[in-house]
Each structure stands twice: as structure tokens, then as C-alpha cells.
């Protein structure tokens, strides 16, 4: 028994020495394998430690889901495990090899998509809005001459003190909100509500034709799906110019 303890001690000592040496290199390599060698380019980002608040309220979807990221230089990273951090508007990924979370370098992201149930959600990073530099992720519901985009954000609301699911007393509630925008290269983002009046007011010169077209096609705008259908119809009939 004593011998076993000695051997265990020696093995642990050697392992510790190895780890300490490896760390002196300034590079932590963890479990590298052939999957780590992405010839086309590597992922850049910053290691992240999630706190309970972020984990509970700010991440979407509720669990890590498969997704893909496209960089502005054309590099595509597939089969990543992704979640969108709506509070600080960041993309978070989980590295399976190293078993760590990291925040994807936002400046490099062109778009990302992930599986949300049966739906694939695609987010794009907007770099310019009305000639103003910006750096925000927007979900792209429809892409065309006029695109329909959604800005996800977490709204912090003061409420009466309550105990959350972890038993911690809180006086704020976080709610996920969505703002809808029409986007064109020329005009940038214009906020819009999901109803017919808002769509008509966006294209005042074609109101009559748009009304007629929506009526003929039986489209009643009251959600994302109907707004996308309406926009598609407008673009097909050249009523967005």
C-alpha cells in the first residue's frame, strides 16, 4: 500500500512538473488533435468565464446549439457550439477540445447562424448604418433589396424584490425584447412595427398598390412571418423603390 502511494506520488510529481513546464511556454495547448489544424484559418477570440446571471438571463438559446460562423475574410467555421449573448451583443462559443468558453472576435464576424429548434437563425454584423460606423449583430429575417432585420436586446426592469430560482433576492428582471428594422444599403436601418400601417408609411408613394396587393394575397401583417411574406411580395412587384 505504501509502495502504491509512493508510485502515485512520483507519477503526480512528474505530471505536475510537465504541466508547469508546458505552461512556461506561454501557450496552453490542451487536447490538440487533427481537428485543431484548420488550414483555411483559425478562430480568434477571448476566453470567457460566465457568471450565473449571464448564464441564466442573457444567453440565447437556453442550451448550446450547433452553428456556423463566417468571417469577413471568407473563413467559415462549421459545427461550432454557439449561443448569442443578447445583453452585451456578443457571440459565445464552446471549444470542445479545450473545454472552454470564448467570445468570438466581433470585428472579424460577418455573420453567424445557429439551429433554434426547427429554425435556423442567421445573424449578420452591421458595420455601417447611415454612414455611421456601428458594430452590432442583427438577425436577418429576410434578405433582399429591402431586408427585414431584428435587433435582440435584454431590457432591465426594476421590480419588487423577489427570490430567483437560485434563491437569490433580486429587484430587477431581464426581458428579451426585439426591435424590427427595414434595412437598405442606401438608407440604412429604419425601425418598423409588425403591422400594415407601419409598412405603408415606409413606402408612402406606393400605398395604394401595396394595400391592393396585400388584400389580393390575403396577407394580414401581425408577425415576423407575415411581414417577410409582405416584403417579398413588394419586392417582386417593384413597390419598394
Amino acid at each position, binding site marked *: 500500500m505504501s509502495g502504491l502511494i509512493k508510485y502515485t506520488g512520483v507519477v503526480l510529481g512528474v505530471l505536475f512538473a510537465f504541466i508547469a513546464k508546458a505552461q*512556461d511556454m506561454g501557450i496552453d*495547448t490542451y487536447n490538440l488533435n487533427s481537428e*485543431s*489544424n484548420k*488550414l483555411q*484559418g483559425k478562430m480568434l477570440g477571448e476566453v470567457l*468565464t460566465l457568471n450565473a446571471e449571464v448564464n441564466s438571463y442573457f444567453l440565447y438559446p437556453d442550451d448550446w446549439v450547433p452553428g456556423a460562423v463566417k*468571417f469577413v475574410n471568407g473563413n467559415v467555421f462549421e459545427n461550432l457550439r454557439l449561443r448569442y449573448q443578447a445583453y452585451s451583443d456578443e457571440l459565445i462559443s464552446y*471549444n470542445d477540445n*479545450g473545454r472552454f468558453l470564448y467570445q468570438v472576435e466581433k470585428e472579424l464576424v460577418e455573420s453567424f447562424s445557429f439551429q433554434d429548434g426547427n429554425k435556423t437563425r442567421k445573424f449578420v454584423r452591421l458595420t455601417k448604418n447611415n454612414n455611421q460606423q456601428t458594430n452590432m449583430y442583427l438577425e436577418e429575417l429576410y434578405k433582399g433589396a429591402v431586408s427585414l432585420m431584428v435587433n435582440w436586446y435584454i431590457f432591465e426592469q426594476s421590480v419588487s424584490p423577489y427570490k430567483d430560482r437560485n434563491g437569490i433576492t433580486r429587484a430587477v428582471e431581464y426581458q428579451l425584447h426585439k426591435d424590427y428594422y427595414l434595412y437598405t444599403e442606401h438608407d440604412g436601418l429604419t425601425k418598423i412595427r409588425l403591422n400594415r400601417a407601419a409598412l405603408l408609411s415606409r413606402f408612402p408613394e406606393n400605398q395604394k398598390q401595396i394595400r391592393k396587393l396585400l388584400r389580393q394575397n390575403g396577407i394580414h401583417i401581425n408577425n415576423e412571418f407575415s411581414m417577410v411574406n409582405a416584403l417579398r411580395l413588394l419586392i417582386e412587384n417593384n413597390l419598394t423603390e
Partner: protein
Amino acid sequence: MSRAFKILFLVVMVCAGLKSMAQTTANRELVVFTDRDFCISGDTLWLKAYVPKELQRYGNIVHLQLESQTGNLIASRAVKYNNTQAEGFIAVPDSLQTGLYFVHAFFNAQRNNGVLKCTGRSVYVYNRFEEAIERLPVVEDKAAVVTPESADNQIDIYLEDKNYRRRDEVKGSINTGDNEFVYMVASARIIEPFSHKNSGFMNFGMTDRNAGIPPFPEEDGVLISGSLSDRETGDAANNLVLLTVTGNETYFDYYYPDSTGLFHFFLPDARGNANLILQPLAVGDKLFDIELTPNFMSAAEQLKFDSTFVNPKQAEIIENSIKGTFFNKLFRGVSITSKDDFEMPNPYGMPFYGRPDNHIVPDLFIDLPSFKEISRELLIGFQYRDRNDEVIFRMLDYGQDRFFDTEPLRLINGIPVFKNSFFQDLKSTDITFIDLVKSERIFGDLRFNGVLFVSLKDKSNGWLAQQPNIFQLKVPCIEFPKQANYSPNAEGRTQPDTRRQFLNEVVDNDKEWPFSFQLSDVKGDLEIKVEAVSKSGKLYRTSKIISVQ
């Protein structure tokens, strides 16, 4: 009778099918054109390659290579094609033996296609130090030789005059009528009879002899491959290999080899000759060897050759050509300079460690005599700990509001450094700038507990000699676009002009393509030739030979 008729009909149909297949192979093959049938050792051989649209899925980098009769690689180039054309050159080594050589082209992504077909060219090389050439090899296997169809009816070469003398201006036009060729190259040269008769297009079957190079489609970049081995045992090693490219300080990459020790790096947008620094990451004092694997394809089957006597007239012309090349170099100089130009923009648009939290330019402050003083005075959030003659660096972790408990990634001129002693004697006057990253960064699957980047004013990296396991290698990447200069020397008639090549250009598919060039002092038969690839992939040729008096 009826049965015999049926069999005959079947045979005719099969033959017709085979013929049509043979005619359209060029639609699925790279076709190489050279500006000459022979060259003298030390010359520059200019190449063009037709890249069919069908092959463009394999990437946009074409490898051109010069191979010996025995299948040895002599030289190779990676060029980027535009539309359907790749252009480049091969500097024929000065010491290359007299003989028959072959020019091929391939895409790296075609590696796993089994036997790869290419329509290449054979060229003769005459060693300029060889005193008398009596015998030369010729291809015995006639099936490998591609004889283009005559295009005399489709392409007309029109010349303004009928008789030409030395230094005359040759003017004319190439008329293609209503025939639509997808690619046409016009060239003009003084013929050397032996090579003119015995060189030309060849059918090449190529195969991958460098097992291990992945069939990676090279888009705007080149693949560099090599192998890592233990210096002591010679066995393959699978330690992490780090890559730095000098000239682009903020580029970095890594590869984790498998048990075969093979590693591969893709250098995006790298043009010219790259100076690579490769470092296997080793714990302890283990020493390694690194060897690069040349990216080339070999002939699938060895061709058979015969040896033929060179008659005295042919030998005299070859000798004159060798002398002419010498004079040409003497008076015109070498057209291709072996400059070490290198360009490589950062593919991420930012350093691989992200935007630094601090960027310090020591020249803006008072001069400091050591790195200890620099870190104390200028590097906020960075600790230089000097205990028991051991120097330890620690970086502040902004996110956690504490110092990391391990060393940060340390870089000098972009090269990872694993000994802090290299920093000790650095003075502020030696340093251009210092970048500090105070967070845990990732690059692929690697993690760094902060980054210390020191850019020195001296980029010679002489300090590398003191680090073990560092390999500096010069690697050719994508060739800078260059054009052959066939024009006469500006000095005019006061100097001898011994040019033998006058034209080598792609013909626009207009109905009439005008050309003009000035002849040199060389007498002989001038051939103006158009070689073309038709829409169906068939090779055509037409030429006009005139005597220069």
C-alpha cells in the same frame, strides 16, 4: 451481311466516340504553352497555361513545373490565374545538363484524382558550358506526343511584307474569321531546327508521389508542407509546430502533426519569397529536425527515349544560339531579378492575438537602459519579477482583476520566445513598440494567458541563433506577375542584338489582332505561330515561316 453491317456500324460509332473524347480532353486539362522550343541553361522560360472553366473548382493557384526525363523536379512556380489564363516563368538552372525536359501544370486539389492528365510541353535545354552537342534524346513513345490539328483554314497570319532583313520591323495581323477559339497564343521566334522538329505538346499522366500533402484547394495562397522528426532517433514526431512569417509580424499559425510527423500550413495571399520560421514546441531539451516537402507531381509512367545524332548544321545553330544568349545577357542584362520581395497582408486584418490593450512606443519616453526598467516605467499591468537569478513575467488579467499565474505568450518581432533572458538586455532605444494583451486570448485551439509583443528596430533576428529548435526557411509562394521583355535594347544599333524570341502573347478573340515587333541581328528562319484551343477542347496550330536574310 446484315450482321456484318451492324458490327461495322458499331465499330465506327465506338471509334467516333473515342475520337470525340480525345478531342475534348483539353476541356478538362490544363494546357501549357512555352515561348520557345529550346533554352540555354541560365535562360528564363516563359510559360502560359490555359485553365478550362471546368477545372476552376480546384482553386485559383496553378503549379507550373519543369521536370527532367527521369522525372526529377528541376524547378516549380505557383501562379495565380486570371479568367482562363495563368502566366509565369521558370528560371532554368545554369548548371542544368543538356537534354529534353518537360513542363507540366497542375492544381494542388487534383492530387487525389488518381492519374492526372495535363497537356504539357517538351523543351530542349542546352547547357551553355557544353562544348559540342553530338547526340540528343527524342521521345520514342509517339502516343505521348500531341500533334495539333492544322488551323490554316481558320487562322490566317497576315504579314505586310514578304521579305525581311535583320532589324526590320515585322508588322502583321492574325485573323481568326468566324472561328471561335477559347484560347490562342501567338509567338514568334527564330527556329533552331532540331528542337523545332522534336519538341511540342505532350500528353502527361501525372501522379502524386508526395503522399501526405492534402488535396487542399489553394485559393489566393499556397500550401506549405513538411515533416517533423526527432533528431536523435530520426522517428517522426508529433509536437506542435509554430509558424511565423518574417515581414508580417502579426501573422502566426500552428499545426499539430499526427503520428507521421507531417505538417501543413496555408499561407494566404503570400507573394514572393517568404522567410518562414518554424518551431516545434518541446518540453525539455529534445531536439528536432524539420524538412519541407516540395509540392510537385511526377510522371505516372516513364516515357521511352531514343538518342539521335545532331547533324553539323543543327550543331552549328545550337552553338550560335548559346553564343547569342551569352551576348544577350552581356548587353541586355538579366531580365528577371532574384529580388527577395515578399508581400503578405494579414488575413485577419488584426494581430492573431486581437487588438492589444496597450500599444507603447518607447521612443516617446525617456531612454531606459533595460527591459526591467521599461516594464517598471512603461508597461502598466505587466510584472517583471527577478528572483534568484530567474526572470518571470506576469500579465494582468483585466477580466478577473488579478495577475495570471503563468507566463504570457512572449513574442519578439512576431516570433514566439520561450526564454525571458532574451528580453533582459533590451534597451528602449532597441524597441519600435510593445503591445500588451491583458486577457486570455484564443487562437484556434491555443490559449494564451496574456501576450507580450516586442517589435525591435533590428529585424535581422540574429538572436534566433541562440534558440534551439528554430528553423528558418526560404519558401517561394505565389509568383509576382511578371512579363517577358522581348523588345530590343534601347541602346539601338551600337550593340549587338541576339534575341531569338520576339512575341508571345495571348490573342484576343477579335476577328483581327494586329502585331508588330523588331527583328534582331540573328539570321535564320523566323516562325510566327498561333496555337489555339477550340471550344471543344481541340488543339490547333498554324504557322508562317519566313527567312530573315
